[in-house]
């Protein structure tokens, strides 16, 4: 699904990501862990194609196609999607109108999907204006349901969300990633950033990576890595694997 090779990324004049290599296969969901400021969100924004993240070296291949130089909407059209941690508020743009714009033709599913995420009362509201943490995330998940991407990046889906909402959001993300299907029949892939790991209680993941100082330092079973981090903190966790 996704192949990242020798990726170097600059924000402004500063190189933030150094020599990133990552492969995510079809049907797999990976977890990206790492301390604040380590470059996790930068990697996701780069993969989405945001213009102020400049790729100086390396390639991104998505479903066999080189998308390294593509703009965000071209990647979105090919099946890349993202749940943003802090999406912008857009005055005057109604959530319902955005959903119609995303779906283009198939708008009849919108009310039902909105109801499933308890967002039916938000369709006539300006997007993200006065939304609570949980409402922002439910709005993001709803947009992804309409967009239906093949590869979904999730930037801290549990941040600012209460326990009840985590369950709702986690289950919905699970559906998006076809977790209800047999492992051999799953086509959708994901990459999740999490700090707390709470989302992993609702979402099966296949592989974990730890990012530090703009580099991916280690790989392994996501739950084991998380357990290590919880026990020893990021510092020791990384030191033990990179003596």
């Amino acid at each position: 699904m996704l192949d990242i090779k020798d990726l170097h990324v600059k924000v402004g004049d500063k190189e933030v990501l150094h020599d990133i290599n990552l492969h995510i296969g079809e049907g797999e969901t990976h977890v990206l862990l790492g301390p604040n400021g380590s470059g996790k969100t930068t990697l996701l924004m780069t993969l989405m194609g945001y213009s102020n993240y400049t790729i100086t070296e390396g390639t991104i291949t998505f479903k066999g196609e080189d998308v390294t130089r593509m703009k965000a909407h071209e990647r979105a059209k090919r099946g890349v999607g993202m749940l943003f941690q802090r999406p912008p508020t857009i005055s005057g743009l109604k959530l319902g109108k955005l959903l119609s714009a995303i779906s283009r033709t198939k708008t009849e599913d919108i009310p039902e999907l909105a109801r499933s995420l308890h967002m039916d009362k938000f369709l006539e509201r300006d997007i993200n204006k006065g939304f609570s943490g949980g409402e922002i995330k439910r709005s993001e998940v709803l947009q992804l349901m309409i967009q239906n991407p093949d590869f979904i990046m999730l930037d801290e889906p549990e941040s600012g969300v209460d326990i009840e909402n985590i369950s709702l959001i986690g289950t919905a993300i699970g559906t998006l990633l076809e977790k209800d299907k047999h492992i051999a029949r799953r086509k959708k892939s994901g990459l999740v950033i999490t700090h707390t790991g709470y989302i992993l209680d609702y979402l099966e993941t296949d592989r974990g990576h730890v990012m530090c100082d703009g580099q991916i330092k280690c790989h392994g079973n996501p739950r084991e890595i998380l357990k290590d981090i919880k026990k020893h903190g990021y510092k020791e966790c990384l030191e033990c694997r990179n003596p």
Partner: protein
Amino acid sequence: MSQPVTPEISQADRERMAQTGIDFEMKNRCGSYLQMDQEIVHSDCAEAGIEVLPYKKAMEKYDWLKEYSWKIVSPEKDEVTKYVAAQKDPKGYVIIAHKGSNNIYPIQACLYLGRELIQHVHNIIIAEEGAELHIISGCSSGEHVGSGGMHYGVSEFYVKKNAKISFTMIHNWSENIEVYPRSASVVEENGVFLSNYVCMQPVKKIQMYPTATLTGANSVARFSSVVIATPGSYMDLGSRAILEGPGSSAELVTRAITKGGTIMSRGHIAGKTTGTKGHLECKGLILKDGIIYAIPEIEGSVVGTELSHEAAVGKLAQEEIEYLMARGLDEDEATATIIRGFLDVKISGLPEALQKQIDASIDEAEKTGF
């Protein structure tokens, strides 16, 4: 229902008028006034209790109307009012909503400039006690007004006790037309005056500064303007509310976009009595180099008046554009979607049909990417 409007108008000009909300079939309108240059081609209203009359005829019919003519707009105000006042054959309309009347469908007033150098009108609009009156005024010019033209319009609005007037004006002039509306309103106890202005199309120059004087207790005025200035357009727009009645309030909202033209966005609220409230808001977007000059003024002269303003002029946020691009919209679609949102002003108290008309004229501009 009123009769369809059937003057001799070319299809192209009909389309231009339709963009300003003029409905020739009269499906959602209760009355019409249509003036082409200086010729009044249609004037009627089917709604009981509401009269739509040419100015001259109205003055002949009702002697008491003299008390309402040139009362709140001074004929000596400027060159425009002097010119209109000097006319021996005055044009324009008088709309009277008699006590207790209420029109669900708006009255449409269409002022169309085809050939004349100067089109002049003097309008008087009265909502008597408890009446509710909704007017949509579409102003446009023919495609072939080659040498340019001018529109001088004087309007006087009287909102009596417990009455309501909404006046929605949609302009569709062309690059060589100059427009000088001069209007004022007086709002009595518990009266509501809503004034909405939309201009998405080129105009050479427009200058207006409508003033509402809220004399009655708990009276309300709301002005909203949504405008785009194209290269060569000069729009000097303002609105003023004088809060004299105890508990009276006003809200002045502007959304202005320049694509190369100049917009002066003025506003003035004066709080003269205790318990009054006013808010002035101007948001501007500069899409291409042009000028948006916001001049908000609030003037409180007594303890117990609360006035505020906010003005902001800026550019489209890249973060918002890319957020929509991440959802699959290309850059142009994302930009147009954000601009459409920016221009989305919902006016409280406005009938749905009129809000839809405002939305439709902005949607029309969205089709071409603004």
